[in-house]
């Protein structure tokens, strides 16, 4: 069966192959491309990447608690509440500073 599949795939994959320098150029709406795309440009939301790291680590801390919330009881809940409160204070500060705006 495997052999049949492989042969079938090879037969199906009989492709046209005709190279031309024009075909191999970068697509830029039919114009000849102006320079490379690998240039410096403003990534706009680079602060967001830092934020993502922050919240992802927060999530990594929350997951162990999440699976055992019932067993950890009120003590665990209070601990998580204070932890999240600190992170969200940071979030509030960043929002006030305008860190999440289009720059």
């Amino acid at each position, binding site marked *: 069966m495997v052999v049949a599949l492989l042969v079938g795939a090879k037969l*199906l994959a009989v492709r046209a192959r005709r190279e031309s320098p024009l075909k191999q150029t970068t*697509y830029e*709406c039919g114009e000849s491309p102006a320079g490379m795309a690998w240039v410096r440009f403003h990534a706009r939301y680079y602060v967001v990447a830092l934020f993502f790291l922050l919240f992802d680590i927060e999530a990594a801390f929350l997951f162990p608690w999440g*699976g055992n*919330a019932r*067993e950890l009881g009120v003590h*665990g*809940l209070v601990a998580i*509440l204070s932890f999240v409160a600190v992170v969200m204070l940071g979030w509030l500060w960043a929002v006030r500073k305008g860190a999440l705006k289009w720059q």
Partner: protein
Amino acid sequence: MNVVLTAVVTCVAILTGILTATAWLIWFERKFSGRMQSRLGPTMVGPSGLAQPVADLVKLLQKEDVVPEAADRALFDLAPKLAALCALGAAAVVPFSATVVGAKIDLGVLFLLAIGAVTVMPVFMAGWASNNKFALLGGMRALAQSISYEVPLVLSAMVPVILAGSMDVSKIVEAQTRDGWYLIDPVWLGLPAFGLFLLAMLAESNRIPFDIPEAESELVAGVTTEYGGMKFALFYLGEYVHTLVASAVASALFLGGWDGPFAPGLHWMVAKTVGLFVFVYWMRWSLLRFRSDQLMRICWYWLVPLAVALLLGAGAWVVL
């Protein structure tokens, strides 16, 4: 030996099922969107165009493989394969019924979220390797959007984890069979969490209204601009499988998974998944696209605090 055999058979069955389902769900989407726009959709190949997916596959296989001169060849070739692989990998831990599971692992939810986060890497890889301005911009947008919506996705997925007290997807479904679906059980928690998860899921799989990485009216085709033939097909496949698997995850976490009366569990799971998938199509043809900065503002100003509040609410609900 027997265990290995069972695992292999299950995995092959699940993969075949998903790929076949995806092929005909694409047909269904084309029909559906056609009807929504007063068109007929595919009609020529087979009755009601039912053989269209096969014809598409043959066509795409035979297309010439064009690689731009300026592209980074190795990454350019690798990206579509990785995209399809990541999307299919997530299906491993989704329980389609009590017995049909690729891999039962204790940290199923974490695995799903991790794979979901990795799916953006091949997209950006493609954008960078193409050395095309449209593709690079699409890749940057995909990256910014994906890491932003990852946060509400993770936090809202934690609500069922807290309610069920387990990170095994099968255990979460079992808990729902016992206590009622999380969508409606504590409705003030379940419904918003489900809504958040669905929104973040749409954004993660680059679906309208969050499809700015592809934005065909501004970026040609985003990251797939330079791709053709089978490589493009792999991207397309990856995107659809990602949406399908995400729908399956949403129905397992919030809609009770295989739980339901009268019919076997597998039927219910498939029905719920396809239902959510059709809902995603419906959104696609009903809504407009957000602008990049609006997208980020919605996420960081509203969705993230809401998700955190829901999470703490779920904790309080369980403990008190």
